């Protein structure tokens, strides 16, 4: 009981902190578009470091050879480790390079209601897209990650579309060959 209480205080704290940031960004930037971009950028910066934390604590994670494995690891290990949820992977396209993440619960938006002026345009949890993009880039995979639905905006479900773009090649730093 003690540990559970601690964890839920921590995650509530995180939810509230994220909410405050979202609020202040909204007020400062005015346009939802800008806020969305800002959240994505923040997520990206978090993601490029978060991947190291993830890899250090998941030594069994090996190089994925299929994009399907990547999706699986993101949900079952990544999301679980950092947000305590396990999204579902859905709606693969024919080429198997695009899928949807269905979030049945979202700890970030636990206490949130979107005001009418941004209820159609703000992707409240856009930080998650940035995190996925940043983390995958550090393991040489370029992806596009966007929200396609959010229960905060009245959709039936909260969904993120992840599309594989390309493998990033290893390159020597400039000045060496």
């Amino acid at each position: 009981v003690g540990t559970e209480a601690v964890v839920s205080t921590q995650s509530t704290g995180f939810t509230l902190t994220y909410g405050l940031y979202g609020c202040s960004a909204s007020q400062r930037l005015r346009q939802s578009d800008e806020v969305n971009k800002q959240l994505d950028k923040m997520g990206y910066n978090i993601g490029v470091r978060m991947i190291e934390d993830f890899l250090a604590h998941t030594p069994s994670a090996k190089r994925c050879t299929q994009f399907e494995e990547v999706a699986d690891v993101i949900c079952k290990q990544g999301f679980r480790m950092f947000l305590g949820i396990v999204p579902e992977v859905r709606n693969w396209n024919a080429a198997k390079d695009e899928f949807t993440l269905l979030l049945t619960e979202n700890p970030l938006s636990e206490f949130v209601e979107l005001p009418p002026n941004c209820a159609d345009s703000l992707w409240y949890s856009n930080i998650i897209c940035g995190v996925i993009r940043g983390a995958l880039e550090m393991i040489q995979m370029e992806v596009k990650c966007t929200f396609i639905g959010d229960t905060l905006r009245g959709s039936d479900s909260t969904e993120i579309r992840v599309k594989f773009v390309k493998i990033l090649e290893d390159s020597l730093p400039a000045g060496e060959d």
Partner: protein
Amino acid sequence: VVSTQSTGSSGINAEYGETDMSQDEEFKLVYGMLYSLKSFVSRISPATSDSFQSYSTNNYKMSMYETPSGCKFVMNTAVEWSPQAVSEILHSLYKEVYVEFAVKNPLLNLQETIESELFKSKIETFINTRIREM
């Protein structure tokens, strides 16, 4: 001597003295050599994916541990050290020192040489503890 390098790898000379070139030159040399070796090793290998672990001379063994995110940890040890021991040490170094004190420090630019005294001292403590346990 503890040293860290701009491409996110850290080189540690645990026992003997320093080499007679500047740290910068040494880093470039080591990095270039490891890059070539990695490429060579995987091309020659009969397996589909293989990676370079270490080389030994009469006097030392240089081992490398690379994470899937491209972070390389390089350590020189005595020749007798087993590859498993070194690999385990480097992985723990990654997990307990690099992730905790470098990655999680938002003030550190990981693309540049890491100057943080805290990070360096944590590495030293970690290595000294491990050496005593060997």
